[in-house]
């Protein structure tokens, strides 16, 4: 079963009650992933419903302003539901349908993955239940209503720290109880094998398009490709088709919160240690006793104590580089991109933009940087206003 791991990372560390269903999932995925009926149906949904391919936009103002490399933005924010999440959700929801499942369950932090899942469930006629930490349901009341509007039931999770990791715990428990008719639609490149592979495959459309687009526009490959990283789904999607291009530097930007020395961050690559949690061996923020540590970021989408196993592996072999951006830096980038390009980025994606602001000016004028703009920032406006001392209703 060596195909379940990336180097030493990954694996299937889940309770026996789930193993049979996980094997079933892997077999089904392998059966359908190259089935022309499945792939053409998925392609149709991605193009006609989600709005793919997404644009590769040359950020002219930003490029001139920074005076270094040419900056391109991969516009995942223009997808239906406003982020890259829909790429994976449509793939898995269609797989669920092919497997004869009647019901989707999913975890969500800020609500983006929950909204995308509820959307796909509505489209494909499946029941849907979303698990969301109680704290998050209060912080993101608008997204809760959005999911309900789409016909999903939102389950407020009151166990543990009442945030994303507890939502994953609860979704796994629910899956163990009802695996016969229920499909667990995991939102990132994490969890037990085969999820990290399935989610990566469905997200790799980002770099498949971007690689083709940049070659068409510039006639050469970029020097740097970058993305924000929590669990790591938009980052792996952005990296994947460039991994075999050794001259393309891959940079993941994680949430340094109030600073990596403050203990208030979600910088797993910088501060995490090897461990086993949520079905995978990877890096996790944990205390000296191996208890999973609470994490913090202004961005709910990056607020997860672990990182996908393929990223841990890319990091260990030095193929990708992982750095941090603080809340302050991300908010600065949020406001910067809004004003200079007229594009309001998600606070998650703003972490990648923040790092670009540091490195782009030092690069040559004929260098090229692609930033994955994983989502749009409408959802974050109220929170940023609050950060700036202005209270507005969502």
């Amino acid at each position, binding site marked *: *079963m060596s195909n*379940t791991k990336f180097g030493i990372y990954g*694996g*299937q*560390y*889940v*309770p*026996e*009650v789930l*193993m*049979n269903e996980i094997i079933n999932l892997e077999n089904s995925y392998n059966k359908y992933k190259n089935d022309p009926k499945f792939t053409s149906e998925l392609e149709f949904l991605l193009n006609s419903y989600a709005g793919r391919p997404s644009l590769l936009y040359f950020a002219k103002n930003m490029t001139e302003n920074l005076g270094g490399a040419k900056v391109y933005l991969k516009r995942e924010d223009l997808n239906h539901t406003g982020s890259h999440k829909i790429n994976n959700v449509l793939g898995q929801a269609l797989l669920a349908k092919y497997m004869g499942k009647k019901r989707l369950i999913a975890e969500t932090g800020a609500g983006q993955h929950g909204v995308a899942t509820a959307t796909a469930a509505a489209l494909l006629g499946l029941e849907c239940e979303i698990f969301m930490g109680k704290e998050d349901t209060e912080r993101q009341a608008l997204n809760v209503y959005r999911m309900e509007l789409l016909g999903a039931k939102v389950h407020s999770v009151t*166990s*543990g720290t009442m945030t994303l*990791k*507890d939502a994953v*715990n609860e979704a*796994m*428990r629910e899956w*163990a*109880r*009802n695996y016969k008719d229920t499909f667990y639609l995991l939102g990132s490149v994490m969890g037990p094998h085969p999820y990290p592979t399935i989610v990566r495959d469905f997200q790799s459309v980002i770099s498949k398009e971007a690689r083709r687009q940049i070659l068409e526009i510039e006639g050469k490959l970029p020097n740097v490709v970058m993305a924000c990283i929590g669990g790591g789904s938009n980052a792996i999607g952005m990296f994947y088709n460039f991994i075999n291009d050794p001259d393309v530097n891959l940079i993941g930007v994680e949430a340094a919160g109030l600073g990596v020395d403050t203990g208030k961050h979600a910088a797993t690559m910088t501060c995490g*240690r*090897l*461990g*086993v*949690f*949520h*079905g995978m061996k990877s890096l*996790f923020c*944990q205390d000296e*006793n*191996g*208890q*999973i540590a609470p994490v913090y970021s202004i961005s709910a989408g990056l607020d997860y104590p672990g990182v996908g196993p393929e990223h841990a592996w890319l990091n260990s072999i030095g193929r990708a580089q992982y750095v941090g951006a603080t809340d302050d830096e991300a908010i600065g980038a949020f406001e910067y991109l809004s004003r200079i390009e007229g594009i309001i980025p998600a606070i998650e994606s703003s972490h990648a933009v923040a790092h670009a602001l540091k490195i782009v000016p030092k690069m040559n004028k004929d260098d090229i940087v692609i930033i994955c703009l994983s989502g749009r920032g409408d959802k974050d406006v109220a929170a940023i206003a609050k950060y700036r001392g202005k209270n507005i209703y969502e």
Partner: protein
Amino acid sequence: MNKLTEAFKNKALIGFLTAGDPDIETSKRYILEIVRAGVDIVEIEIPFSDPIMEGEIIQASTLRALKAGTNVDKVFGLVESLRQKTDIPVIFLTYLNPVFNYGYEKFFEKCQKAGVQGVIIPDLPYEEKTEVELVAIKYDVDIICLVANAPKERVQKIAKSAKGFIYIVPPMGSKEENIEDLVCSIKEVSDIPCAVGFGVSTLEQAKKYANCTDGIVIGSGIVRIIAQYGKNADLKIYEYVKSIKEAIKS
């Protein structure tokens, strides 16, 4: 025959609690009450922040124990001090991360020293257990396997490699026949004892499951009493365990 297997001469009763709920000293007292009430094996949970296999009652107990400052070393200390009073077989239930973090070598060496005969790790399925079992074997500690509703082929594959006893997780809403079928599949390939863990707390459930297996685990029933009575649960625990013991004897 090892000490764990031997505990299954008659219908075995396994009593479970979380170490450190409400605190380590009280846990020790409660374990001695459970032993006095007649259990054959004591199962002690080393608390983990995210026990994904547990229901609400044991999750809450885990959090209380962590809040009280329980860690792996303190739980080893608990077992060592128990050993001055009883030689009852002891097993641990915990999740892989605390063990991995502690270091497999150090963990199982300490298990052997303290007289812990087996360890149940719910998030360590058959596919991943080799990395842990290679070390556990060295120190003569059994990694106890879980079996759930799975095709016969998988159940038998697990049973063939299982040590100590098998922990059966009853499928949701399962009837006696489902458990009987599982036990039959196991006994076709191994004479290892089978106990039902998870979901046994009432006298009726205890009788039903004891009928078709070699033993039962009572966990949430005991933990619920601790949640209710805190540090004054001694007698209630004793009476509850005693009543289950008598029910499965008859």
